[in-house]
C-alpha cells in the first residue's frame, strides 16, 4: 500500500507492505540509516524517532500507522548550516557517546525530554532514559550531556 509522511520536514512517500515497520521504511526505503535496530523486544531504544512530536520506537510501529504523520529522525537534528544543535554539541562536549550506536536514540529521547521539561533533575533524566540502553558509557556522560544541554551547571558532576 502507498503511504506518505513528512520526514524531517520533507514530504516522502513509498510503497510498503502491511508488515513494514517504520524503522525499515526509514532505513531501507528512504536510505536513512541513522536510526538503528538493536533488539527485538522494543526495549533498547536505538530506533527512537519522533512521530507527531512524540518519541516512539520505530521498530514497534508499522510504517502504515505513520501514514500522514510528521516524523523526525536523527538526520534532521543538526542546524541548517550543518553544525551540531545544542543537544548534539553537548554530547560531543561531554563525551556522551563512544561507539555511537545508541546515540541517535539518546539524542531523540533527550530532545523530547527537554521539550517538555526545560530543567530536568538528574533523576528525571535517568528515568527518561529507561527505554534507551547504552553498553559503552555507563550513562554518566550521557546524563551529564543532557544536563549541560538544558543549560544547567554540570561542574559538580565529576569529570576526570
Amino acid at each position, binding site marked *: 500500500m502507498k503511504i506518505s509522511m513528512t520526514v524531517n520536514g520533507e514530504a516522502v512517500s513509498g510503497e510498503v507492505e502491511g*508488515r513494514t515497520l517504520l524503522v525499515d521504511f526509514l532505513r531501507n526505503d528512504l536510505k536513512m540509516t541513522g536510526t538503528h535496530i538493536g533488539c*527485538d523486544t522494543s526495549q533498547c531504544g536505538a530506533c527512537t524517532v519522533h512521530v507527531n512530536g512524540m518519541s516512539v520506537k520505530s521498530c514497534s510501529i508499522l510504517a502504515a500507522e505513520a501514514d500522514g504523520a510528521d516524523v523526525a529522525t536523527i538526520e534532521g537534528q543538526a542546524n541548517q548550516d550543518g553544525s551540531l544543535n545544542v543537544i548534539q554539541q553537548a554530547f560531543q562536549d561531554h563525551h556522551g557517546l563512544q561507539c555511537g550506536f545508541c546515540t541517535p536514540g539518546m539524542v531523540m529521547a533527550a530532545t523530547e525530554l527537554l521539550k517538555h521539561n526545560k530543567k530536568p533533575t538528574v533523576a528525571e533524566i535517568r528515568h527518561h532514559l*529507561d527505554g534507551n540502553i547504552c553498553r559503552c558509557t555507563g550513562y554518566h556522560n550521557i546524563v551529564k550531556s543532557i544536563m549541560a544541554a538544558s543549560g544547567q551547571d554540570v561542574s559538580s558532576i565529576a569529570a576526570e
Partner: protein
Amino acid sequence: MYNFEFVKPSSISEAVTALTDEEATPLSGGQTLLPTMKQRLANPEKLVSLAGIAEMQGVTEADGMVHIGAATTHATVAAKAQSYPGLAKLAAHIGDPAVRNRGTIGGSLANNDPAACYPAAALASNATIVTDSREIAADDYFQGMFSTALGEGEIVTAVRFPVPQVSNYQKFEQPASRFALVGVFVAKYADGVRVAVTGASEDGVFRWSEAEAALESNFSADALANLTVSAQDMIEDLHGSKAYRANLVKVLTGRAVKAAN
C-alpha cells in the same frame, strides 16, 4: 513477521465489522503485539488498527468516575487522569517514555499479561470494562494469565474507574523487563478496601482478600502484621522464588497502604 492486510477503521462499528473475519486481530499500541509477531509467535492475516478511532480516545472525569477510551495511551492517562492520582502514577511508570507514547490501556487489559500494571488498577478499583457489546465488571473480567472474558472479535472500547478516597500502587520492577515482579494496588473506597496483586501469581492478577478484610477495620500497614501470603501458586522463575514473591506481596501491600495514607 509474516505479511498481513492492514486496515485502519475510524469508528468502533467499522472495527467490529473488520474483526468478524476470524483471521483478523486488533492492533492497539502494538508494544506487545508487534514484538510477538516479529518472533513469528502470532501470525494474523489481518491487523485492524484501533489507533484511528476518535471515539476510543481520551480521558474524561465526572461524578467521581474516570472514563478512559481504550485506545488512550499511557502517557495521556498519566497526564490527564488528575482526579485519580494512583492510576495516573501507575500509567506514568509503565515501560518507558516511548512505550508510553504508544501503549494503550485497552491493549494492556485485553492482553492481561500476568505482570502488567493496569490489571491491578482495574481489579483494585472494580473498574468497568466497556466493550463494543456489553459492560464487564473487573471482578468478572480477569480469568487467568493472558485470559479474559472477552469473546471472539470483541474489543474493549473504554474503561471506567470509580475514584477511591485514597490509593497507591507499589511496583517492584523485574529489572530486565521493567514489568512488575510483584505490583500491589491498594484502593480505599467508602464501602471497602481492595487490594489487587499483579506479577506474583500463576493465575494472573488477584485480590488479596485477607488483607482487604484486615485493612477495612484498620487502614494501616500494621493491620497486615500477622497475615501470611501463601507461596503455593506464586510464580517461580529466574527473577524470584515463590517464597520471595509471597514476601513481596506482603511488603508491597504494607508500603502501598503507608503511601496512600
